[in-house]
């Protein structure tokens, strides 16, 4: 059976004046219909770049230098522009971080919603508006008829993110890529939006790739998780297993850094140091300068992803016993 999305050894490079930088260094994962995957990591780990690489919309100096992106068995990174445009928005929807910025300030919500429908097939204005109305109801916007005629500035942040979700949903895509969909919202709204996204994915049987740095959100929503560090997947598996029993020292560090596991008043745990910039990724394991258990092997040899215990779980670390 073909997977909904299959990424094989994907490599993304940025061609700059002084040479090429590798932003994504050979990542692979699969996603089945209706399955939800969390991509986790610090800023600069390559999570968002992965998202854009899937829909083949890397901005200029970036390009896919190797590997394949298969969507329903179709190789996306080999498609012509025209064919790719038909998949974007139609079969794959995307939700961005900041709903203040992703809606065009001078067009009404209704216009922006029906636009996607117009771009992907002949549809009458009446039908398009009916679908838009239906989707607004789905994302629980009160009095949608009135709201369709309003402009983005007349909505609150949470409402706008609902609208962005409605726009992503409007063509009933099979896959939604949500790039930190709740980061710009306040905490109570975050939970609402995540719940909404989760229930929509379940009821519509949509696949979801949730890009975030928030482990709490991932554990709530996704079935699978992939932890990224410096352009590589360092640990992947079922969310529950990875969260309760992290193997890679980086994942362990991330989970320890959550404030929930601490006594009130004590200092928060943190991973010392910073994510290396793409220009000077250390040799060997990219994480070794920040790792508490690294030894000389980590400094010279890059660890490969190896499966442990069950076949779903993979870890890239020399120190983990298989």
């Amino acid at each position, binding site marked *: 059976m073909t997977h909904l999305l299959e990424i094989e050894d994907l490599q993304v490079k940025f061609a700059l004046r002084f040479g090429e930088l590798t932003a994504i260094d050979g990542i692979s994962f699969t996603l089945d219909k209706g399955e939800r995957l969390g991509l986790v990591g610090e800023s600069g780990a390559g999570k968002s770049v992965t998202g854009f690489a899937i829909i083949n919309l890397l901005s200029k100096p970036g390009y896919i230098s190797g590997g394949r992106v298969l969507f329903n068995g179709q190789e996306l990174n080999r498609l012509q522009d025209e064919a790719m445009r*038909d998949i974007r928005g139609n079969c794959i929807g995307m939700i*961005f971080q900041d709903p203040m*910025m992703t*809606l065009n300030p001078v*067009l009404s919500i209704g216009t922006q919603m029906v636009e996607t429908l117009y771009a992907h097939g002949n549809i009458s204005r009446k039908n398009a508006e009916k679908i838009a109305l239906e989707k607004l109801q789905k994302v629980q916007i009160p009095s949608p008829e009135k709201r369709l005629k309003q402009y983005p500035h007349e909505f609150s942040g949470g409402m706008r993110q609902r609208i962005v979700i409605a726009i992503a949903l409007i063509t009933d895509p099979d896959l939604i890529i949500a790039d930190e969909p709740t980061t710009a919202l306040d905490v109570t709204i975050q939970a609402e939006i995540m719940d909404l996204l989760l229930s929509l994915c379940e009821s519509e049987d949509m696949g979801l790739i949730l890009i975030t740095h928030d482990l709490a959100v991932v554990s709530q929503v996704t079935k699978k998780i992939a932890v990224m560090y410096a352009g590589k997947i360092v640990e992947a598996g079922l969310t529950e297993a990875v969260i309760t029993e992290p193997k890679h020292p980086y994942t362990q560090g991330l989970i320890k850094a959550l404030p929930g596991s601490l006594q009130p008043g004590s200092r928060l745990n943190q991973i010392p140091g910073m994510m290396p910039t793409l220009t000077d990724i250390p040799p060997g394991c990219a994480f070794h300068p920040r790792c508490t258990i690294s030894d000389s092997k980590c400094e010279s040899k890059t660890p490969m992803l190896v499966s442990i215990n069950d076949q779903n779980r993979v870890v890239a670390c020399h120190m983990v016993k298989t």
Partner: protein
Amino acid sequence: MNRSWQRFKKSYLLYSFKQDWVAIASFIVLANLILISILAPVLAPYNPYDPLSIDIMNSEIPPAWIEEGTKAFIFGTDIQGRDLLSTMIYGLRLSVIIGIGAVLLQAFLGISVGLTAGYIGGKVDAVLMRIADIQLSFPYLMVAIFISAIFQVVFGIGRFEELAVPLLVVIIGLAEWPVYARTVRASVMGEKNKEYVEAARVIGLSRKIIMVRHILPNTMTSVLVISTIQVANAVMSEAALSFLGLGMPVTKPSLGSLIKSGFEYIFSGSWWITFFPGIALIVFVLVINLLGDWLRDVLNPKLYKG
């Protein structure tokens, strides 16, 4: 319709307009001038284009309130015996048509070029903007002399009269489009990196739709403001060209050619032929500029005082 009217009634635009008496006065004057030019055939006492209504014996009659003046010609007559008021009204009409026509052409060319250059960038941008630079480095008077010389060779002097209006529109329109191109390009470059453009690409919209439907409306503020100033500039350019004898012919005078035709007689005492069209031109250009200033202040969020 009713809804957008309600919206307009509550808008900041209308509110600030009501607060600013200069804007109100300018608007009233401008509206009147434009109304007059639209209704020229109804309002003008005589038809200056009709040779039968012109009597050479009436030439150089001073305005009505001067001793030798008659009530029949309120502002007097010009050297050919035409009623100056009627000629001015028709001249204003020509000036408005040429001004607006030239600006529409400028805006069309400039917006297309600026949008393409700004959004696509790279080599396309470099080539288009260098063309704009070259265009701006030609003084428009030189272009005008060139084009009208070529025109007269190709079509003959006889047809110049009937084709003078579109010709002036093209000359002035071609001379100043880079102003639009530069402004639009600058704001497109600011807009194109915003996330809503990315979002539009993500939902699979084509480049053309993104440029025209998403980016263009967001650059309209600056387009609107320069448009007002450009209309005034175009009217001035037309007057200057006519004054130099490159614009509207004497048989169909615009304000500029009226000023010119009177200029030769100003020392022989017929000051009114130049004076009244001059005043009309100044008032017209001034109110447009004042309105443009007001619009710029209102639409500039950095100056927002509300």
